[in-house]
């Protein structure tokens, strides 16, 4: 059965490239353009994994991650944070918010797919 991934990013450039990469590897992709929308889409679509950007309008990735962990129906969906900075504080903040893993921009698709498979399998 095909796994479903929710891509959360306010950049149409990023969502387009992620949709192309993930579709090619037999994932179904749904998209949200900010943290607030992501919670609604996640509750409706029940994805197998969420790929969450950090800097977004309305609600950033950290806050969206915290909110998702509080929602009964989606609290255990694996979340991979996508950040421009791989520095300790940023990564720590991501894990404190409840993310399972993180990748840094520019995204290496091989690394991303490896982490996605690890998160979904785990």
């Amino acid at each position: 059965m095909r796994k479903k991934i929710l891509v959360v990013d306010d950049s149409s450039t990023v969502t387009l490239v992620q949709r192309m990469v993930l579709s090619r590897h037999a994932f179904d992709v749904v998209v949200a353009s900010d943290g607030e929308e992501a919670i609604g889409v996640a509750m409706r679509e029940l994805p197998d994994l969420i790929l969450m950007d950090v800097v977004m309008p309305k609600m950033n990735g950290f806050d969206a991650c915290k909110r998702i962990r509080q929602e009964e129906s989606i609290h255990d969906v694996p979340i991979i944070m996508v950040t421009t900075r791989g520095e300790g504080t940023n990564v720590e903040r991501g894990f404190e918010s409840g993310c399972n893993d993180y990748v840094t921009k520019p995204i290496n698709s091989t690394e991303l797919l490896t982490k996605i498979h690890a998160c979904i399998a785990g």
Partner: protein
Amino acid sequence: MRHAVEDRSDPCVRHTEEIVELRLLLHDVEMRSVLASNELRELRRERDALRKELANAAGELSVVETEHAALTSLFVAAHQLHGTMDRETVLSRLEEIIVNFVGSEEFGVYEHTRGDELRRIAQVGLSDDDGDGRDPRLLQDLAACIKLEIDERLVGYIAIYRLLPHKPALEPADLELFNLLKTHAAAALLASRPSHDAQ
């Protein structure tokens, strides 16, 4: 006949026959063992060859994945730049391309005005004090400078001052993207100029 029946009833003869049978059996086992050893050696050789083939295939797959990712980025960059005639959208997409595909949060996009001055029309991570066309940093400390031109007409530059901390250097895929931006970003900027000017 009678003599033979008597021989078989003799324990010595029976033992001798059993020993012969056991020796034959042992020989048979030894032969099977040799065959099994040969087969095992052959299987191990095949396994090693398959492992090597698998490692090569994994390496090739990784190369194909990298190339595919680079081509996807090029396609998306061109698609995004030419998917609109709106100046603000072109500039915002250009910023997204540089942040997400190149990996920089310190760059400026400069355009030649009709008066042949250089004007900064977009920036990420630069302060307003850095100025417009007189940006003193334009010609120094650059990680990359992409000349935007089409049909030998110079439209402007993208000056990338610094890459993200975890990206130590530019990669071949970045240079391919720069080649695409050279003409496609120039074309998108030119195409979006009239609507911008009208606004």
